[in-house]
């Protein structure tokens, strides 16, 4: 069995308004940060997972992302995977 460290990034789709991101952008400007064009907030999920090779682990992560980590009506996901 191989072990992998997976980082999943879940983001609201570009077409979905992100009011928390807008509020944070507004606070960032109040802090004095200049030049911010857009600011959107997502989630990062870290998973350590075992499996027989990268392909098998990718299948498991795809299922998790599609069915649980993200709601694909409103969110997109991507992930990086590192063999430990």
């Amino acid at each position, binding site marked *: 069995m191989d072990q992998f460290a997976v980082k999943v990034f879940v983001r*609201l789709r570009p077409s*979905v*308004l992100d*009011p*928390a991101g807008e509020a944070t952008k507004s606070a960032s400007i109040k802090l004095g940060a200049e030049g911010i064009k857009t600011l959107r907030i997502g989630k990062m999920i870290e998973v350590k997972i075992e499996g027989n090779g990268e392909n098998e682990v990718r299948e498991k992560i795809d299922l998790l992302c599609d069915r*649980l*980590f993200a*709601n694909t*009506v*409103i969110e997109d996901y991507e992930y990086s995977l590192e063999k430990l």
Partner: protein
Amino acid sequence: MDNFTVGVVVFPGSNCDRDVSWALEGCLDIRTKYLWHESSDLSDVDAIVLPGGFSYGDYLRCGAIARFSSLINALDEFVKSGKRVLGICNGFQILTESGFLPGALIANKNLNFICDDVELDIVSSKGGWFNNVDEKQTIKLPIAHGEGRYHCDSDTLKKLVDNELIALRYKNNPNGSSFDIAGITNEKGNVLGLMPHPERACDETIGGTDGLFTLKSLILK
């Protein structure tokens, strides 16, 4: 109809289960039974209410974890059999997360938790959930949510409109919902999800009775 029993689902974090039961038993004389989320035997209930609250602490997304409970797994067959399911607030969120209704409910546009009475237009009475308001196409119900902004893509919205699946629209959209949507049904009409709380509008002394008929509609065949 004497033995008609409505199952009121209790998840860890549900907090409107007793209100729903009070409204059904106390105001409408309809028998209720609490269903713990781990149960999958729905054979002795005739309709189901998924009440409001914060199932599983709203972790990950509202309704996302509840979707994997034994009870929700058993709900598919229940819905297919034509029996009625009413999802209120967090119950509506669970119904969208689990695919019984299209779209999703996300953070209110103004980021506030909104607790208020809202005016609602009855758009469709598919399934008979709002048949009482023939003469009065507007009702007033309380809302209490932080994540009630209904969102769907344009194809889904078209399908909702074309098939008369939009049950309720806000008169003054409080949360930024697409097309002012406050409640929708499935195509068959036996599943209704809505953000407002009909169970909190069942007695004049606490502000109105516009929620009574929707709860009473649970006993329709």
